[in-house]
Structure formats: C-alpha cells, structure tokens
C-alpha cells in the first residue's frame, strides 16, 4: 500500500526561511539547514522548498544554498522558484534535488516542462498552480508569487500542465495560505477529479483533521504544510515540529 505523503513546504527568501500569510508579510523563521536537520531527525516524508522572491525579482535559484540543503537532506526534495530554462533545472538536479516545481515559467513557456521531462522523467516535475479569488469571488490562476493573473481556470491549467508532462500537481489556495483554517477542499477536489497524476493540496493546514479532509474529501495524494510545522501554534513563536508517524498513519 502506497502511503499518503505529508510534506513540509518551506519558503526561502534571501537564504533564510520565512513564512507568509496569503502570500504576504514574510516573517523570518530561521536557518534552512538547521530546519532540514530537525526534519531529518523526525523522518519526514519529503520536503518542498519554494523561493518566493526568485521569480518576481527575476533572480537565479540560490544554487549554493540549495547544495547545502541537499547535502543535509536524506529525504526526497523538491525546489521551485526562478527556474526559467533547462540549464537551470539541470544544475538543480545535479545538486541532488530530485524534483523541480515549475509555476511562473510554465505560463510563458510551457515547453520547458517537456524539455525537463524528456531527460529526467515526469516524476521530476511538479506543476504548481496558485489560485486566488478576485474581487467577485471567482478563483483565478495567479503566478509570480500571486502578482500576475491568468485567464484560464484552475481546471484548464491543470489539464494543460498534465498534457505538458508534469508528474504531479501542487495546488495552493493563496486565500487560505498561512490562515490555519484548513485547505480549500472544494478546489482540491475540482483538480483531483480531472487529472490522473498525484495532487498535493497546499495552503491553510492547521491541524491533523485538515490533513484528513484534504486526503479523504479532496482526493489529494499528498498534503503540503507550512505554518503548522514551523510554529508552535497559531499566533505563537517558531517551533519546527512534525506530527507523529502513528498519528499520520491513522488518517
């Protein structure tokens, strides 16, 4: 039986770890290397690192930091942020990171995905979809850390990404991110209903019940968590933590 995956999703900014709320107000959490060491000890399933500044600021991925992270990481590792071409993706794989998460670049250059999967396989690419409600409450696809809006619906974009060859999809609700309110189950379900690749639900997880909802009601294969694994609890201080294996296995 394949286990569901519970994945800390960690945000990078200027070589430090930060946490946002609805993609805004990044607060400093700590040193990424120390955090990885703690997650190693806790035996987490997988880690995702997203650089929240790389795409909007048109920066290169921080290869030096990523190499240090990969050195410490004895679990599968994904990185997203600022990947615009195959050469950058190659450097990231050479460092020892097994997956790249592609978001902003896919909107202008969908071909990048097939260029990467042709060499590294579909399992090496996560297609990232950020979704945000507009003033009329309609959920729109956004990119570049939610600074750019796109016309197509989340479902349309998910299907495009799968057609382009992504091995899984990370769906993030910008409106839920950092809120501790639970993931957008309906949005997750809309995507899991129409794609045949694993879907990672992200944004809003505050407790184990939220993980269960994303899996059981949303149909997700995995759930990514941010605030819950870096804060003691809502509105409390930093504490890197992870639910016990026994609790997760009961979901």
């Amino acid at each position: 039986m394949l286990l569901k995956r519970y994945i800390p999703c960690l945000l990078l900014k200027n070589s430090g770890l930060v946490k946002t709320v609805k993609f805004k107000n990044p607060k400093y959490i700590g040193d990424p290397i120390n955090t990885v060491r703690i997650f190693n000890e806790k035996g987490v399933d997988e880690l995702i690192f997203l650089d929240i500044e790389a795409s909007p600021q048109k920066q290169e991925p921080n290869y030096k930091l990523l190499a240090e992270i990969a050195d410490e990481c004895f679990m599968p590792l994904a990185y997203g942020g600022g990947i615009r071409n195959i050469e950058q993706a190659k450097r990231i794989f050479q460092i020892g990171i097994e997956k790249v998460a592609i978001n902003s670049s896919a909107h202008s250059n969908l071909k990048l995905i097939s260029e990467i999967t042709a060499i590294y396989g579909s399992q090496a690419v996560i297609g990232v979809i950020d979704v945000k409600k507009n003033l009329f409450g309609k959920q729109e696809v956004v990119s570049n850390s939610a600074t750019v809006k796109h016309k197509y619906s989340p479902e349309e974009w998910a299907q495009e990404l799968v057609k382009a060859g992504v091995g899984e999809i990370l769906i993030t609700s910008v409106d839920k991110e950092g809120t501790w309110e639970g993931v957008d189950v309906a949005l997750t379900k809309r995507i899991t209903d129409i794609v045949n690749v694993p879907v990672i639900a992200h944004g809003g997880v505050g407790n184990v019940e939220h993980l269960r909802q994303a899996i059981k009601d949303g149909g997700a294969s995995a759930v990514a968590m941010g605030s819950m694994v870096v804060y003691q609890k809502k509105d409390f201080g930093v504490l890197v933590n992870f639910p016990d294996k026994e609790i997760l296995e009961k979901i």
Partner: protein
Amino acid sequence: MITIIDYGMGNLGSVQNMLKRIGTLSVVTSDINEIEKAEKILLPGVGAFDAAVKKIDELNLRTVLKYKALEQKVPFLGICLGMQLLTRRSEEGVLKGLNFVDAQTVKFNFGNDASLKIPHMGWNFVKENKQSELTKGFTPDYRFYFVHSYKVVCDKSESSILRTNYGGEFDSAIQNGNIFGAQFHPEKSHKYGIHLLTNFSKI
C-alpha cells in the same frame, strides 16, 4: 571504498552524501581503469532504460561491469533504474540490459483502475521474501521512497529478497549472489536507507 558509476543519468550527490554520513568512502567515476580497481560498485540511475544502456555502451562500460560483477564477483548494488539495468530487458526500451540477474523489467499495468497512479511514487513498505545480507535487521515497519513506472519481475522467486505491494506484489529488491538491486531510493529514505547502505558497505 565504494565506486559509484557515473554514466550521466541522474544525480549522484545524495548517494554520495549518505555514504559520507555513514562513514564510507566513495568515488564517482566513469573511468574504465578506475572501475577495474573497484572493491564495491554502486550503479545508480534515474531516467529511461534505453538512454541509460546507450550511455553505458558509449562509455564502453558493459565489459568492465560484467567482469567486476560476474567474474571478480565484487559486491554490486544497482539502485532504481540501476536495478532495472541488471535485468535482461525492459518493456521501456529495445536495447539489451546487463543481464546480471535472471529477471526482466515490465510496465505497471492496472487496467482501468484509476486509483493507482503511475509512476508509483512515494513511501511504501517492503516485505522480506528471502533473507539477505543487504536487508539484515529489517523489521516489518521498514519503508522506502519509490519513484518508478516500470517494475522488475524475477524469473525465480529465490532472486527476490524484498517485495512491495502496489496493485499486486512486485520485486522491490533482488539478489544474484554478490549482485543486488533496490528499486527504491535508499539515499532518500533517511534512517531506513542508512541501514541498507550500511549493510551494503559491510558486505
């Protein structure tokens, strides 16, 4: 000292890092002379079967690998695609595998069952099929990280040391004497992977 074969398929950083962590020296090379001197060989690999076979043949590594594995009988471990390369053929391609273990590589086929995704990706359990030095000390809660779309089927059950269930059981670790294969990624399976690579380093 473990010699990691570098034939340009997939990342070698994490394997090296984990070996460093368990205190085993390793060298990464594609040089025939260096491979000839190897005490132990680790064949990693991520990607497509034919692309890997082509690279191995372009680098003229087939003969030296065969000599080390089948004649000198040094401990030899293939990981992921590296394990599939130990078989005689794969449904993923048309080129010949190394044929070090009596087995073949076939595609996962779940018919119309949409609940089982391909690739088989994530953490899954392993069940002992046959005792082996590679898996000594494993307990039933042991799990590993898998990413693959093709699976290995051994001709005889005795070549299979671990089995894993994903829409039916498949051979997740194999052995032919000094030659071992692991379908999962020990280098990405923290304490469980450290255990397996420590076992391999002691063989």
